[in-house]
């Protein structure tokens, strides 16, 4: 495929032929506007002939609220840089020459440091600057984390008992779930991977609603169409979970584009795991988000494991945070088990994303304490004491509890009362969900298209007749 330059299109359509790369290599000269156009050299900031905005050569060719790309890669200028031999205006901006052949190292040597504000014991680290959360938010965050823990334990067991077909826990990642959710506004659109039910919990999804989806009953908002944990809720601005990895990422860039078009005071937040960053969709999503300049926050839950693939076999970069810069995206690495650090970074990311209309990448380091799902036994590929360590010494829930209790906002009595309440509520919700009717068979055929096509109308009618004729072959508790 011929090299195609983003700005040269209008030139080439004038010339009626493609411009090869070599014809554009040309030293900067102070020739006339027309002369430089024919050579296909594109000046950016320093050109006297035109400013960046007219670099597209047509009045309507301006990028939608484009930033001055030339400036972004502009090097700090000095008089020496004006020397013709030291810099050239390649497409994409001026770049200085060097006579020393120097391969940039595959690693910067020093890993990007990880932002945290609470130490392992829940004490604010001396000298750390962060936005405090008030009692109401802190208690709500903490109780959400506890609820998520209990939900995971009990629903996991429910699968083990054969009452639901599948479940996946977020154990160890409660802080990422609740703290990121708390930092957002209800208008922010969430596109989850699948390990973020805590975000939905924060927004008001009830235990009953979670249970209904897992049991696929009549009250399931998903109409019984998807396996457990594939929650979705339009009223909570939470896109329905879709199983394939990382497909939500380019979709998130698109949703953010629609927010930008509507000039909404909101952003998109989308989540992925460490494994998801190996997918092609991750790269396309970040690139598109950066080029279209949209308000989307990409949160990577780097929990160390992609089913049985450890980090060391997933990538060779310094984790995920360094990838942001490759796409021109501002990024941060944060301690995912520090609820306050997560809260702060997502708050700031949100403000930046909306005010500056740009994507942000957050790598939240954490650990997947549970198995990948109920279809996995992680003791087969990792050490039991590794799991234990992260379950106890690095538990994000107990760490935040120490901070909340330290402020006098929670007590041990509150803890045991709350836990037993939630357990009771959840058990009741599960009983109710299990007993509730299954969705009607008509749901098999609806929503394939906006309107049922004739073949599905016919199939539904024919199925109805067959059931009437042979009722003994069909479950009696499933309505038509």
């Amino acid at each position, binding site marked *: 495929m011929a090299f195609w330059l983003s700005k040269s299109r209008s030139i080439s359509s004038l010339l009626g032929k493609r411009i090869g790369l070599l014809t554009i290599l040309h030293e900067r000269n102070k020739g006339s506007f027309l002369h430089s156009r024919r050579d296909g050299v594109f000046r950016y900031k320093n050109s006297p002939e035109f400013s960046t905005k007219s670099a597209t050569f047509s009045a309507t060719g301006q990028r939608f609220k484009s930033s001055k790309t030339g400036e972004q890669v502009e090097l700090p200028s000095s008089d020496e840089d004006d020397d013709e031999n030291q810099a050239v205006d390649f497409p994409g901006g001026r770049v200085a020459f060097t006579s020393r052949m120097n391969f940039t190292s595959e690693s910067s040597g020093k890993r990007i440091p990880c932002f945290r504000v609470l130490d392992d014991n829940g004490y604010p680290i001396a000298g750390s600057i962060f936005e405090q959360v008030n009692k109401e938010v802190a208690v709500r965050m903490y109780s959400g984390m506890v609820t998520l823990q209990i939900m995971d334990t009990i629903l996991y067991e429910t699968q083990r008992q054969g009452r639901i077909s599948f479940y996946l826990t977020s154990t160890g990642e409660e802080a990422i779930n609740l703290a990121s959710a708390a930092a957002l506004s209800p208008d922010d659109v969430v596109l989850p991977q699948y390990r973020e039910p805590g975000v939905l919990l924060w927004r008001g999804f009830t235990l009953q609603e979670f249970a209904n989806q897992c049991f696929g009953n009549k009250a399931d908002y998903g109409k019984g169409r998807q396996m457990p944990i594939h929650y979705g809720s339009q009223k909570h601005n939470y896109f329905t979970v879709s199983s394939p990895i990382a497909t939500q990422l380019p979709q998130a860039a698109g949703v953010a584009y629609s927010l930008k078009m509507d000039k909404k005071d909101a952003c998109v937040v989308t989540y992925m795991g460490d494994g998801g960053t190996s997918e092609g969709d991750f790269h396309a999503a970040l690139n598109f988000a950066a080029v279209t300049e949209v308000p989307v926050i990409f949160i990577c839950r780097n929990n160390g494991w992609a089913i049985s693939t450890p980090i060391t076999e997933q990538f060779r970069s310094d984790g995920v945070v360094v990838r942001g810069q490759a796409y021109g995206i501002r990024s941060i690495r944060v301690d995912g088990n520090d609820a306050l650090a997560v809260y702060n970074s997502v708050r700031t990311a949100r403000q930046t994303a909306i005010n500056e209309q740009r994507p942000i990448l957050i790598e939240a380091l954490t650990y997947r304490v549970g198995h990948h799902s109920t279809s996995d036994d992680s003791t087969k590929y990792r050490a039991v004491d590794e799991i234990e360590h992260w379950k106890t010494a690095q538990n994000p829930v107990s760490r935040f509890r120490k901070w909340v209790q330290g402020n006098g906002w929670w007590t041990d009595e509150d803890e045991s009362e709350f836990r037993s309440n939630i357990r009771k509520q959840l058990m009741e919700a599960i009983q109710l969900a299990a007993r509730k009717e299954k969705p009607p068979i008509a*749901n098999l055929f609806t929503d394939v298209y906006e309107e049922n096509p004739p073949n599905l109308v016919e199939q539904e009618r024919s199925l109805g007749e067959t059931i009437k004729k042979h009722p003994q072959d069909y479950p009696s508790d499933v309505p038509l």
Partner: protein
Amino acid sequence: MFGIISHKLVASTAGGSPGQPILRAAVLAMMSNYSTATKQIMVREALNSALDEEMAADPTVFLMGEEVGEYEGAYKVSKGLLRKYGPQRVVDTPITEAIDHIINSAAKTNYMSAGNINVPIVFRGPNGPAAGVGAQHSQCYAAWYSSCPGLKVLAPYSSEDARGLLKTAIRDPDPVVFLENELLYGESFPVSDEVLDSSFCLPIGKAKIEKEGKDVTITAFSRMVGYALKAAEILEKEDLEAEVINLRSIRPLDRSLINNSVRKTNRLVTVEEGFPQHGVGAEICASVVEENFNYLDAPVERISGADAPMPYAANLERLALPQVEDVVRAARRACYRSVPTATTA
């Protein structure tokens, strides 16, 4: 290489899918032959005018893809649109090519989200062989897309098809794959005033009888419609009247029109450029055999591209694609006018 036209996804309103255009009274062309046509327009002009009119009528329609803006479309189909509607509505994007999102996301999202997330998008671009572009630029994907519930798949032939089907596709709330043909972009077809009217729409799921006949039914779509019509001319000289059906819509397939035709002619030839196994013709044959077995007076005939990646050399490419003579021979075989030759294994 597909340009994407889409209503913007409006995320957060309760109930319904806001942002849908109010469907104006559409003039559905049910005519089976051209009325007295005074104007000729090229398929690319027809597509361009359809895009233009739909974007003018509904401010939530926008176009995005590689080359669609500044370059005015890789095949100039979106000429003038950037200038007219601005970069907010005609968006040049970086490249990323993946069929997964069409099949796994677009086709299934409305169903999986229980109707909460609808996908009113049109994926449009050239499909199938061009001329001398080799294996990775010649495949016909009609059969692939048409096997997916949740998608609608259209394949225009003439300028009238291009205009009417594209306008309907843009207005349709479901994801539509719109398969154009590179070699047809520059072909001109006569169009009536009705076709040129801005409310002209063709219904999805309805095929068109391009030429009536009584001896054999030939189904085709896209460029092969032209080949089928040429074959019909040749057959007429042998006193065989072929009925040529322009499918227009591959999914949903107009099974009733096809079956009605075979009940009349009793013989079927399907034509397509795609690979033979599991092709569009296979589905048509299955439908006809299932519905009208007793009406068939001859085995069904399928004409398709060769079961090999498309070669580049011009002589080989010609052999790998259906030619008019292949259609003629198949029709003769179906009418027992020639000894059936063994088709490729």
